[in-house]
């Protein structure tokens, strides 16, 4: 940081190498951001590893309890069965387990599930992650674009009945927890009014439908994802609308908008390339943060809709104390959040010329 500041103050003197210098800083910034992202992932993995291992209860005990309850077997019998089943040594020192885990991780090996026989954690993630990414990604895309558009409408039509209706809607839907909205939808439209066939909409795909680029497959996928996507959109759109509205109102007061008007530019052009672009900028960083929040919240939504994504798997792993699966899913979610943030930061520098030049000095 210090070298940065010094070099910046030197920059005007060395005019010839200004361009070279600029690229060095830019590269430097990217490099530092990437290193920071990797360090963050490392720390989070370490912290979650120790949180999970140091807590009371472990998968073997849970398994023994289950066996004793299920088959009425004695503790010794259940213990023997557990010992045969689990090829893991939970008595090894935690630090040793940690070093083993990190070593395997570096080789790209996420380990094997304790409970699903022989299933690799990577395979489990590969199987369930796409569904979560698909539903959450689609929902965030819809709610971001729609929210930004509605937010601009609100800003342009502020203090009109339309603005009041939209503002009320936005604060209403963004203050109610998403899982409650999911429950309200299922109970009201599913069991009471019987408009939705909840039983049929469960899961992420109907049995017997073959994956492929067919109309039937795509339709089926959308049919099953419709409710989760709807709930994600409904509960996130409000904050986009409100954020975009205030951002647009602030942008409309900028001098360059007034100048653009004075130059007689078309209103539609001012709205898209002058106001919209600049007003939407600060929202990109929020988008990155919200990815983590929505993926984290998918535990609840996927459980309610019985949607077979990563969130539901996480809950299952938690209930079975399936450490490697828990750890693997944590890793994936963390990587997703960190890289979304990284992408937003780097993209922000590209999108906003003021940041591109000034990011090192302004603080």
């Amino acid at each position, binding site marked *: *940081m210090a070298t940065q500041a010094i070099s910046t103050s030197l920059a005007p003197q060395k005019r010839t190498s200004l361009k070279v210098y600029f690229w060095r800083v830019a590269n430097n910034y990217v490099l530092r951001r990437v290193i*920071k992202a990797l360090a*963050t*992932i490392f*720390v*989070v993995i370490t*912290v*979650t590893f120790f*949180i*999970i291992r140091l*807590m*009371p*209860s472990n998968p073997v005990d849970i398994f023994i309890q289950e066996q004793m309850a299920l088959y009425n077997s004695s503790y010794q019998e259940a213990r023997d069965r557990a010992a045969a089943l689990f090829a893991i040594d939970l008595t090894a020192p935690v630090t040793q387990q940690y070093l083993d885990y990190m070593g395997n991780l570096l080789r790209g090996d996420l380990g094997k599930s304790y409970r699903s026989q022989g299933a690799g954690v990577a395979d489990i993630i590969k199987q369930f992650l796409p569904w979560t990414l698909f539903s959450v990604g689609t929902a965030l895309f819809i709610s971001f674009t729609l929210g930004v558009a509605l937010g601009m409408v609100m800003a342009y039509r502020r203090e009109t009945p339309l603005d009041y209706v939209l503002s*009320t809607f936005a*604060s*209403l839907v*963004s*203050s*109610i*927890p998403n*899982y*409650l909205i999911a*429950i*309200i939808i*299922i*109970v009201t439209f*599913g*069991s*009471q009014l019987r408009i939705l066939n*909840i039983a049929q909409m469960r899961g992420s795909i109907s049995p017997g439908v073959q994956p492929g680029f067919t109309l039937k497959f795509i339709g089926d996928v959308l049919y099953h994802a419709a409710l989760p996507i709807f709930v994600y959109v409904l509960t996130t759109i409000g904050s986009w609308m409100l954020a975009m509205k205030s951002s647009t109102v602030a942008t409309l007061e900028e001098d360059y908008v007034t100048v653009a008007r004075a130059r007689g530019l078309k209103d539609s052009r001012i709205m898209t390339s002058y106001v919209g672009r600049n007003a939407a900028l600060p929202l990109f960083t929020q988008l990155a*943060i919200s990815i*983590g*929040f929505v*993926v*984290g*919240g998918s*535990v*609840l939504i996927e*459980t309610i809709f019985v949607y077979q994504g990563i969130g539901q798997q*996480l*809950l299952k792993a*938690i*209930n079975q*104390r399936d450490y490697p699966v*828990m750890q693997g*899913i*944590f890793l994936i*979610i*963390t990587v997703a*959040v*960190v890289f979304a*943030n990284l992408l937003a930061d780097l993209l922000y520098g590209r999108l906003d010329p003021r940041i591109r030049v000034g990011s090192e000095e302004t603080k």
Partner: protein
Amino acid sequence: MMQAQAFYARQPSFLQSLSQTLKLLARNKVGFAGFLGVLFFVFFALVLPIFVPIDNQTRMDKIYAPASWDHLLGTDFQGRDVFSQLVHGGREVLVIAFVTGAITTFLAVVFGSLSAVLGGWVDSFIMSLADLWLAIPQFPVLAVLASLVKLNNVILLALLLSLLSWPTLTRAIRSQVLSLRQRDYVEAARSLGLSTRHIIFNEIMPNMMSYIAISLIFAMTAAVYAQAGLAFLGLISFSDNNSWGVTIQLAWTKGAIFFRDSFLYIMAPVLAIALFQLSLVSFTRSLEEVFNPRLRTGV
């Protein structure tokens, strides 16, 4: 001596600003409705339990009875009164929300203002820590912790929730302090040679009170979200009387999807939480009115 005088001199102006605050609260209709809603829930969850008896009696002949004078909101799968459960299930939700909100805001104010005022390595350390913390998937971590530790202690859960949620607020408070530091009256106080402590507590903090109050409320809504969510997943439960989240979980696992009669049973706690959240969020509108200095006349 000087300080004591300054303190007494401040008293009436505090009372004045309190009455003014109430006036400003009433100015925004939505916000005032939210304020009344919060008051209602405080009364409902903390005062009503004194008058409404706990109902743990199983009545096999009255399973999923419809609403009547005897049972205002009908009965559950064991014939127990739903209204009574609702009245007794609110306390934990409110207490956890408030305690979590208070601890989170306290941490955020301390770290945020330290970060902004001290700057330098303290600032970069706190901000890096906050960045790191934000990368941890919060709800999943909570779910794991709740399954591993028995989180049936209200204060322990509140502590845990605030330990996870301080970074966002800390950043907000930090930027708020940074911007307030640039104001003219702070510059004036500084050029008068007043101490840093005086500047923080007497010049900056009073001007942040409503902002802090708003932050407190948003921290409360986040706590309600997490707490009821964990209860719904069956990961936390509190002893005798079920909190709203636990009631939702019970209603759900006892087949709210299949029994049309259980509509009231599941919707009562769902709407209670939803309306409580809505009241809290609407209430912030009034606080924003108080917060916005342009709307404050004659202070």
